[in-house]
């Protein structure tokens, strides 16, 4: 049984960053996701028109990968309505910024920290079930969001910007960021105590003091462009190895 173009596009949206480059960002992936819909749309029209539409959809495009479906759907709808190519290119350009910003707020600084924060906080209590639940919940949400985005774009075409503005997405993004701050804050003390108790049962004060110094360096305006948590960890690890090596 062949999948409908909509479902083919949905599946392809999962790999929208497979050919990601610094120059075109997700352009190739967006074109790949749009291709089945465009093929269906142009099946009774000259192939040159379809090729032009596919070429337009592979141009530079930057957005959050989970929301790329909104742009794919909107562009296909606009092609269906016979909107001129230049206007479709302008639509893609106009969508690029907002879809990136809302997606980053909703997902990277919202939903993902919420899911991982809650998983970390529940880890000492329910063990690996917390990890399993995090993966399942995230992927269910991601699937629903990707499908919703594709359908929103297909329904609204050139008017997708306005539809997006009036949708649940912008307020959800704001709320998700607050939830993320709470969830990560909740997780840090719980998982730290658990790691210290079950994984490194000594030196609590030394760890705390080093962590405070490290955090100050990570956040201080004087050092934050050069110091990351990873670098702090690697330097401390190197010092620990030197001390261990010297005492053998």
């Amino acid at each position, binding site marked *: 049984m062949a999948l409908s173009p909509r479902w083919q596009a949905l599946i392809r949206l*999962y*790999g929208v*960053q*497979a*050919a990601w*480059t*610094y120059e075109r960002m997700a352009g*190739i992936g967006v074109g*790949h996701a749009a*291709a089945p819909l465009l093929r269906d749309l142009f099946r009774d029209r000259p192939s040159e028109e*379809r*090729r*032009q*539409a*596919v*070429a*337009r959809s592979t141009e530079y495009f*930057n957005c959050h*990968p*989970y929301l790329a479906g909104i742009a794919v759907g909107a562009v296909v709808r606009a092609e269906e309505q016979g909107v001129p190519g230049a206007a479709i290119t302008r639509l893609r350009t106009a969508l690029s910024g907002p879809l*990136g910003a809302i997606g*980053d707020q909703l997902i990277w600084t919202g939903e*993902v*920290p919420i899911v*991982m924060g809650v*998983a970390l*906080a529940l880890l000492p209590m329910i063990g690996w079930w917390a*990890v399993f639940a*995090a993966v399942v919940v995230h992927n269910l949400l991601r699937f629903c969001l990707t499908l919703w985005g594709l359908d929103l774009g297909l329904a609204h075409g050139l008017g997708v910007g306005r539809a997006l503005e009036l949708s649940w997405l912008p307020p959800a993004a704001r709320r998700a*960021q607050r939830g993320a*701050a*709470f969830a*990560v*804050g*909740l997780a*840090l*003390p719980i*998982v730290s*105590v*658990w*790691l210290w108790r079950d*994984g*490194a049962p000594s030196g609590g004060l030394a*760890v705390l003091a*080093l*962590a405070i110094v*490290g*955090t100050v360096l*990570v*956040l201080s305006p004087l050092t934050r462009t050069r110091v*990351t*948590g*990873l670098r*702090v*960890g*690697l330097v*401390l*690890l190197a010092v620990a190895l030197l001390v*261990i090596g010297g005492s*053998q």
Partner: protein
Amino acid sequence: MTVPLAIALLVWGSIVALDLVTVPQGLLSRPLVAATLAGAMAGDVLAGMLAGAVLELYNLEILPIGAARYPDYGPGAVAAGAAAALIPAAGPIGIAGLIGLPLGLLGGWSVHRHRRNNARRVGRQLDRVSAGDARAIWHLQREGLWRDAARGLVLSAIGLGVAWAVHLVDWSTVAHRELLDWAVLAGGLSAGLGGALRIAGKGARRRWLAVGLLTGTIVAIAWH
């Protein structure tokens, strides 16, 4: 480590690397997820979780926005989770840092190289892509996927190699071994706190972070 386990870990490491960069971007590449399953494969899910949780703290400071360059902890977390399960004398936290942190850095560099390679491939197919050739686009996507899987395979193999080297050490005779745990945990907390404060930004969100920290502290104290 048996050959079937090594093969299973290499496959899992490749999937994890693919998840971060290419497909399906479904949290499989998070260190907590990658290391927990690796620990379960190696026979000690708790050790895998401990290794994964401390690397997850480092991952909290990453915001993969736009063209940002960031470490890829996934394949390293697979090796770290398995090593924590197979070498209990080394301690799960110290070993997670020894294997996972340098490999995270190497992983980040490999992602950058992978994307540069993508650009070269797109450049070679530019005429066909600009002409709207769907086959050329499909070819680029498929190539990107396979090269990313190969990237994950190599990173995982390096991780397992480091794990094998770590296994050669007689950890029961190593003095001050706990310093490794302290270093990795302190670095992880710095990254986690720094990441939390960055996610929180300013204003109301920072208040939510404070409420979360307070609630978490109360839960941690009550639970112990």
